[in-house]
């Protein structure tokens, strides 16, 4: 019965089309977007081929280096203790900048959320944060390395700066998701601003702030490695830079990559466990 019903529909000369699906603006946007991305990609592929490099030879050498990296990791110039120490330093840098960033961002986000701050202030804060976010982290670190001298302080300030701007946006959006009634309930009872924050806002946003901060920690760890390599501010990134760009020792690069991977996968496991725990409590 059902069978024949479907087959008769299939044989129908004009299968009933869903008119709303065709007029759907999302579908049209998707098509236009896909077409433009394809065009740009084709243009890039047509113009990208380097004229000074034989791709076959380069590809072979790349595969050879990957083989050295991933299948034959080995210590080179540095001892394992040195590398682990550098990894711990990078982790510490990420942790410190994330916590500083989250602390400052929480306060600033109170002045950025539209349901808490007056509109002109919120807009001004939003624009300022967008501006800071638009400047890549590495530029902040380079500038501060020039001003306060090469060292950990430059990395701390540079990474914190970007973390604050990122977290203010995320936190403010979490604040704005708090139902207005919840805030009003305390306001009409005559509660001060600080009490509204403490008893209405904080309990409802705590899980989302925690997960945003953790996401930023993962980003900051990646950044701490990158900054060590590109601005020479130390940590595991510096060793990575020296072993690959200075000593061309890809076996050591492989070992460092495995060290970083081990920590990153540990982080991912913590994140999954945390998300499960939060899902249970909410």
């Amino acid at each position, binding site marked *: 019965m059902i069978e024949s019903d479907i087959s008769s529909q299939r044989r129908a000369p004009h299968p009933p089309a869903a008119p709303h699906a065709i007029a759907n603006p999302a579908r049209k946007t998707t098509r236009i977007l896909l077409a433009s991305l394809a065009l740009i990609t084709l243009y*890039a592929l047509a113009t990208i081929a380097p004229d000074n490099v034989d791709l076959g030879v380069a590809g072979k050498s790349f595969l050879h*280096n*990957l083989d050295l990296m991933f299948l034959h990791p080995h210590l080179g110039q540095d001892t394992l203790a040195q590398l682990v120490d550098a990894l711990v330093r990078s982790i510490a840098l990420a942790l410190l900048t994330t916590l500083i960033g989250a602390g400052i961002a929480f306060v600033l986000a109170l002045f950025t959320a539209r349901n808490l701050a007056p509109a002109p202030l919120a807009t001004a804060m939003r624009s300022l944060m967008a501006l800071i976010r638009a400047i890549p*982290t590495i530029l902040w670190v380079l500038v501060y390395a020039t001003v306060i001298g090469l060292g950990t302080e430059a990395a701390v300030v540079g990474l914190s700066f970007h973390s604050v701007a990122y977290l203010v946006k995320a936190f403010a959006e979490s604040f704005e998701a708090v139902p207005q009634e919840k805030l009003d309930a305390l306001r009409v009872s005559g509660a001060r601003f600080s009490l509204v924050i403490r008893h209405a806002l904080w309990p409802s946003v705590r899980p989302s702030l925690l997960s945003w901060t953790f996401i930023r920690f993962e980003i900051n760890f990646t950044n701490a490695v990158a900054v060590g390599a590109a601005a020479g501010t130390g940590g595991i990134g510096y060793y990575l830079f020296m072993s690959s760009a200075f000593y061309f020792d890809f076996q050591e690069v492989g070992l460092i990559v495995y060290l970083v991977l081990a920590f990153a996968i540990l982080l991912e496991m913590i994140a999954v466990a945390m998300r499960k725990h939060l899902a249970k409590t909410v």
Partner: protein
Amino acid sequence: MAELAQFFNRQRWQRAATLMVLALLLVLPQWLLHVDFADALFGIGAGWQWLGKNFMPNQAALGDLGEILHQLGRTIVIAVAATSIAGVVALLLALAGAKTTSRLPLVQMGVRLFASCMRNIPFVAWALVLLFSFKQNDFTGFLALFLMTIGYLTRAFVETLEEVPRGVIEALEVTGARYWQIIGQGVLPAVSAPLMSWLLYMIENNIRDATLVGMLTGTGIGFIFDLYFKSFRYPSAGLVVLAIIAVTIAIELTSTKLRQVLAQ
């Protein structure tokens, strides 16, 4: 009454313990890294001042504008191409790895493991190893961006595909549709909006990261900034920063707008 007191007591202890852990997490790295906070605090103001004084683009810097815009354009085109191609590869991988579209548990595991590793290999390593083999040119930057995007997109696509309701797939299965018909007619139309929005987000992110990748691989806008910065041509470097700000904000606005339309 005693129970209530106990409850508050426990809450107080929990709060104290949380604060202790937080303080420890803050003090420990500070002690390990020997950060001089006074130095750092002084640096914040000094850094802005220094930027305002040295990075103001001048007449000479405007002469570099052509070169800067050219490199910026190349960087955007390469970031878009790398992300788009990574998107196609990631979609194929995700189809093989998502529980809804693949019936091979071993392949699912393999795809997840691959994505997780690719996501977490520091891109500094990719950039530098690629630079050694492919030398300093746009293609190296392209490959670096491609390799660092693929892990992220595969994971995001797997998660998106797994949100497709079983019913959509079963409905097509009972009509006798073949695998690619189910994917093409049932699965992809259902998730095209979130997939596109992930792709846009990654393009936005990659244009941001292109500065750093460019510094490491000696290509595009990152290279030109590094060049000006290290040869003390600060006004030109300032112009590069302004150009990056303009493009990043423009891309962020466009991508947000497009994602809003897609979500409808």
